[in-house]
């Protein structure tokens, strides 16, 4: 049979299909708005989660690196594995010059580290003693800002800074005397020195406040009988440089004697946790997209069943099944478009608010890290674009099943009561 295809131009029918789809979505305004709200709220939740995770990762890395760790550290090979005080960096003068000349490194802080016994007149406690250069340490860590009582190190003889909880344990306060006993390098002879508590610090981090004490670098070297340092903490110009192992200084500071590691390697539990955290957006997105799909399929089927007779008519008077299929997909597209516009606006408002005020999780401890500042949400334009398009795509995909159902309707069945 000759069908009048010569006159048929599919492009010319697009207009009427678009018009039908566009008008049909507002036939039941309440249902359409509820569907749009469902999809928009899901998009808001996804974008909020994404911004929150970005903020949390940034905050945790910042807390981890800026509080004390540094973005990278240099040690003598083997020191990190054994904490052997004999494994110290000797030729510090040359190394410091090399570090100072390195453009990627903003600041560095040399440290001498040793386990010690601290004794007050009332109590005894084990602690880690750090010998630090007060000026350089202030450029790398937040020790100076963490002072809650007394004075930061000034370079004077016999100064010692104690963690708040360690001071409480030792029952000492400012000006009280304290004896520090360490085992010296090269033989392990015991060495003792008398200090006066010159300051109390609190990093708001249990382990640090419980078991750390700071003295001047020169005195620590004298106490341990070494002429070098155990650790050099580095502050990089840019945090991302910690990931970029192609930078020359990584090779220059890694050799048979020296081991230089970025924060990701120094606290692998944190980087693992952060890597897992990034999956949370994916998990939340997947769950919400499944819910969106189910909600939309339900809505579209309700709409299709309500309009079954009408679809029967459209098919009866010559609408091709494919055109009906496209009409339903277009309805999904329009609903999706409305939803992402509303969702992106709402998400921007919520995330922007979160980026200004922050979300207070202060004192919450995660993987040994205490959040001592609010989490500020980080808005990422690419995430907004990607998630919006993903939502639109999911919306259209969710309409395929109802669209196939509508396209497969037999006109006589769809119309039932009449011709």
């Amino acid at each position, binding site marked *: 049979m000759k*069908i*009048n295809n010569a006159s048929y131009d599919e492009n*010319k029918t697009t207009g009427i299909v678009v018009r039908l789809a566009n008008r049909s979505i507002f*036939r039941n305004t309440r249902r359409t708005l509820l569907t749009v709200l469902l999809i928009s709220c899901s998009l808001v939740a996804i974008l909020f989660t994404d911004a929150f995770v970005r903020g949390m990762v940034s905050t945790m890395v910042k807390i981890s690196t800026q509080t004390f760790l540094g973005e990278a550290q240099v040690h003598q090979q083997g020191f990190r594995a054994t904490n052997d005080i004999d494994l110290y960096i000797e030729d510090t003068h040359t190394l410091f010059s090399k570090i100072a000349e390195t453009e990627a490194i903003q600041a560095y802080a040399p440290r001498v580290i040793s386990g010690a016994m601290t004794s007050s007149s009332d109590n005894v406690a084990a602690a880690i003693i750090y010998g630090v250069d007060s000026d350089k340490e202030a450029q790398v860590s937040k020790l100076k800002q963490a002072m809650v009582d007394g004075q930061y190190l000034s370079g004077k003889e016999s100064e010692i800074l104690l963690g708040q909880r360690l001071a409480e344990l030792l029952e000492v306060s400012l000006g009280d005397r304290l004896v520090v006993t360490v085992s010296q390098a090269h033989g392990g002879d015991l060495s003792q020195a008398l200090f006066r508590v010159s300051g109390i610090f609190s990093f708001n981090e249990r382990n640090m406040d419980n078991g750390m004490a700071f003295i001047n670098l020169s005195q620590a070297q004298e106490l341990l009988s070494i002429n070098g340092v155990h650790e050099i903490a580095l502050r990089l110009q840019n945090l991302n440089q910690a990931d970029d192992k192609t930078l020359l200084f990584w090779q220059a500071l890694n050799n048979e004697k020296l081991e230089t590691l970025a924060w990701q390697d120094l606290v692998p539990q944190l980087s693992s946790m952060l890597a897992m955290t990034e999956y949370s957006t994916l998990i939340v997105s997947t769950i919400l997209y499944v819910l969106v799909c189910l909600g939309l399929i339900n809505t579209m089927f309700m709409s299709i069943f309500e309009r079954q007779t009408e679809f029967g008519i459209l098919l009866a008077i*010559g609408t091709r099944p494919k055109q009906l299929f496209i009409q339903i997909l277009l309805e999904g597209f329009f609903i999706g478009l409305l939803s992402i516009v509303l969702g992106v606006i709402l998400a921007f408002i919520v995330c922007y608010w979160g980026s200004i005020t922050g979300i207070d999780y202060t004192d919450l401890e995660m993987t040994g890290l205490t959040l001592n500042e609010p989490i500020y949400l980080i808005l990422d334009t690419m995430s907004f674009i990607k998630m919006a398009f993903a939502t639109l795509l999911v919306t259209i995909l969710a309409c395929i099943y109802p669209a196939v159902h509508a396209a497969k309707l037999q006109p*006589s069945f769809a119309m039932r009561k009449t011709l």
Partner: protein
Amino acid sequence: MNNIAQNNTQKRDVLVNSTTVIETKMLCRHFGQGDTLVNALTDANLTINKGEFTTIIGPSGSGKSTLLQLIGGLDTPTSGEVLLDNKHISQMTGTELSDFRRDHIGFIFQAYNLIPVLSAKENIEYIMLLQGISAQERAKRVSAIMHDVGLEGLENRRPAQLSGGQQQRVAVARAMVSEPSIILADEPTANLDSKTGIELLDMMKTLNEEQKMTFVFSTHDPKIMERAKRIIRLEDGCIVDDECFS
């Protein structure tokens, strides 16, 4: 004359040359199975020629609507054949059947069945849009048919803003504006008052006589029977009588 008009003319010519436009052979339609089996139509043999004004009558449940649905390709027969212009519609694909209905058959439904989101003008124009007829030609035809069915001034009203009679006029206009060869009408006056029903029938009768369109009605309405050139009576799914009038 543009391509569309040319095609329509060719299509009409094909049907003029072959007098028989509708033929059914041993047409059966059963619903359900086993104890719930319903024989809606049994062994219906029927031939309708070009330009006939045929009425299918019978009590409710006698198979009138089923027969029209099968003739219009809206339903699939359990057995038997439907030939339109000597072609088996059962051999057509879904798209071919849609295109055939679009180009050759006009439907008028009892419940008007207009598209509620389209205006009267858009409803009438819809099939022509599917056919790819130019905007100029569409406007010309819509204007003419709206005048013929007495709907001038109501072009932009949606179906909900029209009375039952006006809606059925739109439905008639929609069925006829694409110049189909056959018009199938299922109880078109059932929901109309007597005066409006007569007006519509007279209008269809005129079109039948002037344009040689083939009309097949299913009805209980004596007004339609009075105007029919042929009456086919159905009982329990079987054709029991077939009368022609001069």
